[in-house]
């Protein structure tokens, strides 16, 4: 049964496509407008091999046929690409400079982040969004965040975030209005950094 073997490893997407993607979109919107605040993933979903639950939910809610997604080598499993193509119908691009969404694990080689599109002065919205899968997010005072959406300061700790990331963030901040936004995703929690957020590392 050749036909069957092609499709039998597919996983289900959102249980209720409209309500669930709406709920995830709302959380992403809140997270992006209040950078550094930690939100719980509002739904339950099966994640394919290579992606974690929140990253999968974010992609299912945001990606469609007009958004190119770049997956890091550790994320680009067959199951993950098939899952995204089936449920979102989005193109998977091998070229990181074409990506609207880039997905990676924090313990991987993050040198690609320098090539992510940052948008142009006329169209800063054409930048990409980095979805970084991390092990844990807490509000212990490792990083102090300031900027729009934050009253005074906000503390955030991302487990296993490399020093190179902070150097890149500092560069990224100077590019305003261009720049890359970041979503941190654990299996159950989501936090975001907008391009305007300034970070002081303790």
């Amino acid at each position, binding site marked *: 049964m050749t*036909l*069957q073997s092609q499709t*039998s490893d597919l996983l*289900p*997407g959102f249980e209720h*496509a409209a309500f669930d993607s709406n709920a995830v979109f709302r959380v992403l919107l809140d997270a992006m407008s209040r950078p550094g605040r930690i939100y719980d993933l509002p739904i339950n979903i099966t994640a394919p091999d290579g992606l974690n639950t929140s990253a999968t939910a974010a992609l299912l809610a945001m990606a469609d046929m007009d958004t190119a997604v770049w997956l890091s080598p550790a994320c680009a499993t067959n199951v993950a690409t098939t899952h995204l193509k089936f449920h979102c119908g989005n193109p998977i691009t091998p070229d990181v400079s074409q990506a609207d969404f880039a997905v990676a694990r924090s313990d991987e080689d993050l040198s690609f982040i320098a090539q992510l599109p940052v948008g142009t002065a006329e169209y800063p919205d054409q930048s990409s969004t980095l979805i970084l899968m991390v092990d844990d997010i807490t509000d212990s005072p490792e990083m102090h965040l300031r900027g729009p959406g934050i009253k005074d300061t906000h503390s955030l700790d991302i487990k296993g975030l490399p020093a190179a990331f902070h150097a890149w963030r500092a560069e990224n901040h100077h590019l305003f209005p261009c720049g890359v936004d970041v979503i941190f995703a654990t299996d159950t929690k989501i936090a975001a950094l907008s391009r305007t957020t300034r970070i002081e590392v303790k």
Partner: protein
Amino acid sequence: MTAHTANATATDQSQNADEAIQARQHWMAVLARTERSVLETEWSNKYGDIIWNHLREPQIGMVMVRGRAGGAGQRFNLGEMTVTRCAVTLSDGTVGHSYVKGRDRVQAQYAALFDAVMLRDGAASDFIDTLAQQQAAAKRAHAHKVAATKVDFFTLVRGEDE
């Protein structure tokens, strides 16, 4: 000689794959033309105890239908039509798909279920054959009715120019 045999096997395999695809196209087309109530009754009578899940719940969308004048002319957009699609998975992992005309989510769901059952063990072949015969008979009857009213247009030579 070995290479020759291998070649022959490869051709056989691709032929088999083609046949499998054609067979599946046939039953998916038959299911897509079958009314919801027929599918529903047959499913609850024979397969009601099968455990299954939605892989993609029924979604309504549009497709652009394209045609060629006379089947050979320039391609043109005939118009958009409403289509409902669905994907289900049986408890053993078999995945069934359906694309049906119109907005009937339940019909799309049952068409996908029957597709999955056909992929798994072909259990519904008799049901599909009966439906195919009924549809062919209905199409013939309609063609008969239309043929009876066919008008051939032709111009008589009027001889005015001579």
